[in-house]
């Protein structure tokens, strides 16, 4: 019996008259970290999740039809409810589409598992660069929690990266660097540019602590790892948490936070898979529904006491949406460089141009991660190759041979700064199947982000050329590229300008917490899950320590 089956059998059933210490909305990384730590501390915990368990029988990397079935079985545009993991929203006013996977494990089911801590400067953007805001904590505050979540998620990598303060590294050695990675590393040394072996939530060894098997480098990480070597909370967290007594309520759409007459949270109301309205009640409510779902739920929970939405006296709920503009530069080599396989994932990363240098014409920076290009169908796609590099027609066979096994790309994550007009709000007309307003996404990249992306694309072309690539192609831009959704319930010290305090507690509702990426004051230029998870663990421990003084509705 595999761990998922065991976990499902261990799951406790919820009854509406059950009362919990903590009710969590969302079973993705932040909800998983929170539930695990709380149940270890003896809390009674219920988690409400709109989706279901992932179906690994549809992880097709060891079948010939793998590339054909990616979009069918592992979709990441939630507006395409292909297999029950959708979450409809209106992104017609956004230049980027938020991507996610809704279910047990959350968007970690379709992430590349690139695991990046933020840098110390990411927590002090206002102090160091004079823009946006500082966080309510420092890198040093979070560092011990990074170390702990790296063990729980089963991270592989190498300590000692000079771009980070010294300290403990991941529990497993890094994944192999293949020929394309070695060429890039050598080129960066010659250029005097930073690189470092990639840090990934991918097991480079069998890793019992988090139920992970050893990676077999199929380059299939983003769409169903058949080995269960890629970390996601359905594997690493939920089996243990369910065995310890967490109640996980699935296929349940949370529609409101329930509030007492005293203005305290009492639980949440949801509609179950049969269309029946139900409730789950607890002393504390934690929202872990991501940067789109959490602000929508707060806005949907408006009442007479909170006419503009729950915890929204500042007017900041839904605002400051940051989604990380993404760029790619593809290198194509004359000879084979081992790119049908490897983690996907990052073989290595570069932070050479991460820190601010205002002479470049913008503030802040971006992180690069190097990925192999995988199988033959991927070599024909308009993304990331671009329509101007379309492979069809005369020359197809040579072009295909020239790309397959010969091409890799830098994925470039640009930090975008918070702006009030980039936001999640409730749609004025469109409704979901329950009759609730859809989330409406308004988002446009700033001039600073546009200049940043241009600069980094140019430098990444130079990187590929220095590594001997015969072609260095700027990848095509596509709307469906926003895997990171941050900033829509910002933390801060002042209730007039922020939604939660530095511990995730809502200023206006002392037993309502937000533990997902919504609370980030700035977005950094890193893959965010490491920091989301570490912050959730830090804030959960604070909640546990403050248990005796916690105000509750009951």
């Amino acid at each position, binding site marked *: 019996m595999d761990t998922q089956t065991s976990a499902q059998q261990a799951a406790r059933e919820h009854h509406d008259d059950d009362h919990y210490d903590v009710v969590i909305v969302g079973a993705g990384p932040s909800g998983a970290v929170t539930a695990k730590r709380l149940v270890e501390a003896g809390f009674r915990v219920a988690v409400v999740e709109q989706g279901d368990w992932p179906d690994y029988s549809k992880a097709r*990397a*060891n*079948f*010939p*039809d793998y*590339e*054909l*079935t990616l979009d*069918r079985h592992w979709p990441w545009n939630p507006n395409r409810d292909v297999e029950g993991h959708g979450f409809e929203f209106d992104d017609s006013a956004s230049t980027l589409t938020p991507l996610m996977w809704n279910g047990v494990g959350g968007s970690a089911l379709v992430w590349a598992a690139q695991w990046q801590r933020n*840098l*110390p*400067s990411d*927590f*002090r953007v206002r*102090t160091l660069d004079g823009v946006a805001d500082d966080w309510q904590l*420092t*890198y*040093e505050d979070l560092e011990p929690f990074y170390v702990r979540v790296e063990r729980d998620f089963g991270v592989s990598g*190498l300590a000692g990266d*000079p771009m*980070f*303060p010294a300290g403990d590294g991941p529990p497993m050695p*890094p994944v*192999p*660097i293949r020929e394309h990675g*070695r060429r890039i*590393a*050598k080129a960066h*040394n010659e250029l*005097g540019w*930073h*690189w*470092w*072996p990639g840090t990934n939530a991918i097991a480079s*060894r069998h890793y019992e602590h988090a139920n992970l098997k*050893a*990676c*077999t*480098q*199929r*380059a*299939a990480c983003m769409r169903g790892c058949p080995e269960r070597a890629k970390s996601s909370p359905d594997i690493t967290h939920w089996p243990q948490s369910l065995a310890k007594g967490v109640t996980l309520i699935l296929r349940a759409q949370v529609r409101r936070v329930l509030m007492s007459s005293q203005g305290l949270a009492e639980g949440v109301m949801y509609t179950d898979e049969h269309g029946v309205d139900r409730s789950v009640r607890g002393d504390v409510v934690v929202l872990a529904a991501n940067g789109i779902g959490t602000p929508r739920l707060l806005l949907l929970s408006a009442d007479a006491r909170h006419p503009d939405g729950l915890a929204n006296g500042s007017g900041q709920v839904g605002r400051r949406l940051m989604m990380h503009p993404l760029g790619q530069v593809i290198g194509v080599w004359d000879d084979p460089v081992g790119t*049908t*396989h490897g983690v996907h994932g990052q073989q290595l990363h570069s*932070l050479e141009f991460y*820190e601010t240098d205002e002479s470049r014409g913008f503030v802040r920076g971006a992180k690069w991660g190097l990925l192999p290009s995988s*199988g*033959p*169908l991927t070599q*024909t796609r308009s993304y990331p190759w671009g329509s101007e590099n379309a492979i*069809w*027609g*005369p020359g*197809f*066979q*040579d072009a*295909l*041979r020239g790309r*397959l*096994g010969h091409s890799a790309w830098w994925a470039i994550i640009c930090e975008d700064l918070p702006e009030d007009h980039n936001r999640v709000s409730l749609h004025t007309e469109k409704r979901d199947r329950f009759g609730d307003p859809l989330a409406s996404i308004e988002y446009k990249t700033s001039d600073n982000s546009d200049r940043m992306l241009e600069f980094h694309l140019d430098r990444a072309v130079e990187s590929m050329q220095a590594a001997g690539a015969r072609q260095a192609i700027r990848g095509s831009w596509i709307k469906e590229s926003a895997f990171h959704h941050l900033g829509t319930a910002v933390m801060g010290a002042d209730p007039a300008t922020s939604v939660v305090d530095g511990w995730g507690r809502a200023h206006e509702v002392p037993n309502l917490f937000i533990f997902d990426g919504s609370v980030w004051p700035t977005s950094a230029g890193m893959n965010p899950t490491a920091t989301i998870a570490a912050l959730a663990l830090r804030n959960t421990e604070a909640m546990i320590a403050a248990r005796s003084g916690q105000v509750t509705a009951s």
Partner: protein
Amino acid sequence: MTGPFNTDQLDLLMAAAAWLMPDEGSLPSVEDAGLRETYIAQALLARPDGTPKLAEFLRLAEQDGVEEALEHCRDHRPELWEAVTTILPGAYFLSPQVRDALGYRGQTPQLIPTEGSPDYDEFLSGVLDRGPQYRPTPSQ
């Protein structure tokens, strides 16, 4: 295996496949790869959502000709272009003859060695010699 399309429709799909992936001698032609007999149908079993989109493409191809229909889809019907350029090459890459010619055996497992020197050791000194590069947390 015939799949959802009749012989005339398969003729049009094969013409579209040959337009996208012409026979140039270094890989099997779409006919030799077995798309007509086997792999278009097999690809549609894997992606049944492609069938109605190929049917829509075929209506255009029957009306205007294959080449015109392909160019029209490329320029004006991105959802059909996406389906045609997924299902037909997807079928081509299912063919063992094509995989053999490419030397591509699929996303086969390659175990990570657990012994021996790390493959990055020879390069790391170039990075480490630069010393710390981050901006530390400012003192209050």
